[in-house]
């Protein structure tokens, strides 16, 4: 069970990229898949078009399906009326720290729980896995009080600290290390490496696929988080991107070109990243689905 957890992603990802054995005949499934695919793309298409449309055309009636001309006025207006670039920077900081910290701390802990034998190991791992059952909503109020006592509230630290490590990350890395053959590490130990040298020189370089999954999981969750920044940050200078656009929406209900420009800035980085690293994204989704 434990070693096979990462496997189901493999047939899926290989078939996604394999080009051989493709049937040449026309399949009736196109009649279903083509409209569905277009329907799924439509909201994004609307978002990009509206972001590049002249503001007055979006509130004319009936609204045109295709704008008469493309313009960057929406972005210009957004940059003038909001601190969107500051919020983008804040989110980049939060996600970067979260990813680096996740990789370091969760790999270390995952390795420790998978490979080292020490007193309290099973209890520690059991408690960590148990926390997955606790809904985050249960933790919001006490964490808010705790953070305000620590002076973290209204600063970027409040957004960062909850993302330093996660039970899911430890679980993922532990599963990966359990699936690695132990011979390499044993050989390195016999050669006189300390546990830390074995970890950093031998094990971590082998863990790249699991680290990619962990990084994508952390990027997606920390970049897109809304509820925690909403609670913990009232200071506009420390807004994250998601909180910023949600707050901006509250004051600009129908200024669509500005709102959609904000949407583009909030989603385009992840869309591009998805298109580049689709296989790793899908592996991440498959793993997060199989963790139960």
């Amino acid at each position, binding site marked *: 069970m434990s070693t096979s957890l990462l496997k189901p992603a493999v*047939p*899926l990802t290989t*078939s*996604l990229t394999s080009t051989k054995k*493709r049937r040449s005949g026309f*399949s009736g*499934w*196109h009649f279903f898949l083509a409209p569905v*695919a277009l329907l*799924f*793309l439509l909201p*994004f298409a*609307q*978002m990009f078009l509206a972001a590049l449309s002249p503001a007055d055309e*979006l*509130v004319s009636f*009936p*609204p045109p*399906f295709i704008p008469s001309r493309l313009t960057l006025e929406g972005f210009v207006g957004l940059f003038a009326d909001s601190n969107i670039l500051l919020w983008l920077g804040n989110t980049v900081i939060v996600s970067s720290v979260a990813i680096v910290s996740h990789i370091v701390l*969760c790999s*270390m*802990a995952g*390795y*420790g729980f998978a490979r*080292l*034998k*020490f*007193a*309290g*190991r099973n209890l*520690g791992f059991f408690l960590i896995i148990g*926390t997955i*059952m606790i*809904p*985050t*909503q*249960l*933790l919001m*109020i*006490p964490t808010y009080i*705790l953070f305000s006592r620590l002076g973290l509230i209204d600063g970027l630290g409040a957004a960062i*600290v909850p993302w330093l*490590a996660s039970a899911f990350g*430890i679980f993922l890395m532990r599963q990966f290390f359990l699936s690695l053959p132990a011979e390499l590490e044993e050989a390195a130990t016999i050669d006189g490496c300390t546990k830390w040298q074995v970890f950093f020189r031998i094990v971590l370089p082998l863990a790249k696929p699991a680290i990619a999954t962990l990084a994508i999981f952390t990027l*997606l969750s920390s*970049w*897109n988080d*809304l*509820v925690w920044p909403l*609670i913990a940050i009232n200071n506009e200078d420390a807004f994250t991107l*998601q*909180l910023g*656009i*949600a707050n901006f929406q509250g004051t600009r209900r129908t200024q669509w070109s500005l*709102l959609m420009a904000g*949407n583009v800035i909030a*989603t385009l980085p*992840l869309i591009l990243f998805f298109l580049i690293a689709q296989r790793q994204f899908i592996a991440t*989704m498959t793993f997060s689905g199989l963790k*139960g």
Partner: protein
Amino acid sequence: MTASPSTSNGSRGRAGKTGAPALTFTVPTAQRVEARRRAGLRSARDGWSFVGPATLIILGLSIFPAIWAFILSLQKWDGFSDPAFVGTANYERLVTDDQFFDAISHTGLYTILFVPMSVLGGLFLAVALNRNIRLIGLYRTAIFVPFVASAAATGILSTYLFNPQYGIVNNVLRLLGLPQQGWLEDPDQAMVVIAIMSLWGQAAFTTVIYLAALQDIPGELLEAARIDGANRWQAFWQVVWPQLSPVTVFVTIWQVIGAIQLFDLVYTTTRGGPLDSTKTIVYFLWERAFRGLEFGYGSAVAYALFAITLAITLFVVVYARRRNLEAF
């Protein structure tokens, strides 16, 4: 650290029981025990230096606040004045609070709209995408890419697409000669719109999981069914569907838990309106705790949410066990 005495006790006990190996004659027992104790300490130090930092952060930000939340739920506190112990008063208030039960029924409506569509839709899309035809990579990308859209962006986009005056949905209805709808501004339709946009963003999740499961089913099973005279439809429901049942149980639980915790999309579309029709349990919790500063009452709501989540999860697991679906 903590278990090092037990390690030394264990070694002493073992030495006594199994008789004395040659080593004990040459090394005095006390020294051996000391050596074992040191080794235990060293392995504990090594082990905890690997797992300690992450464990400290995770437990410090989950188990400790979870206990604190329970204490808070027995108090009346606004965060500024002194907290007052009120016993179970918050929970008693909860079971008579009509707004809370409204929130439960709104959450239930969303769950019923979202979960079956997300599970069955995901299954259907996975079956459709599980073939080697031209453009299949493009179709997969198109259906999966909305997964990266945040709830904030999805919510803001929803208010645009479903805007009664300027949105494309009503615009298309108008061209087709169909009546215009209020969508997010109509108390009867707002939750439907939120469910549709959730499906758009999350279809990828159930689809990917079913797709992985479909590709794990051995081809011989299907061949055998076809040889036995089953048509495609029969082969799917008699052979494939039972094979998928652990995955179905799992994604159902997963999606139900997610549905019960709906908040972000409500916040960025309707803020609970119109006429409170989209006020979910978590939205109610957030309002009470962070707008009304009722930390005690909010914590009681959070524990009620936890209980509801646990109850539904247990129900699905027990139901699956009864039907021998063996997901866990």
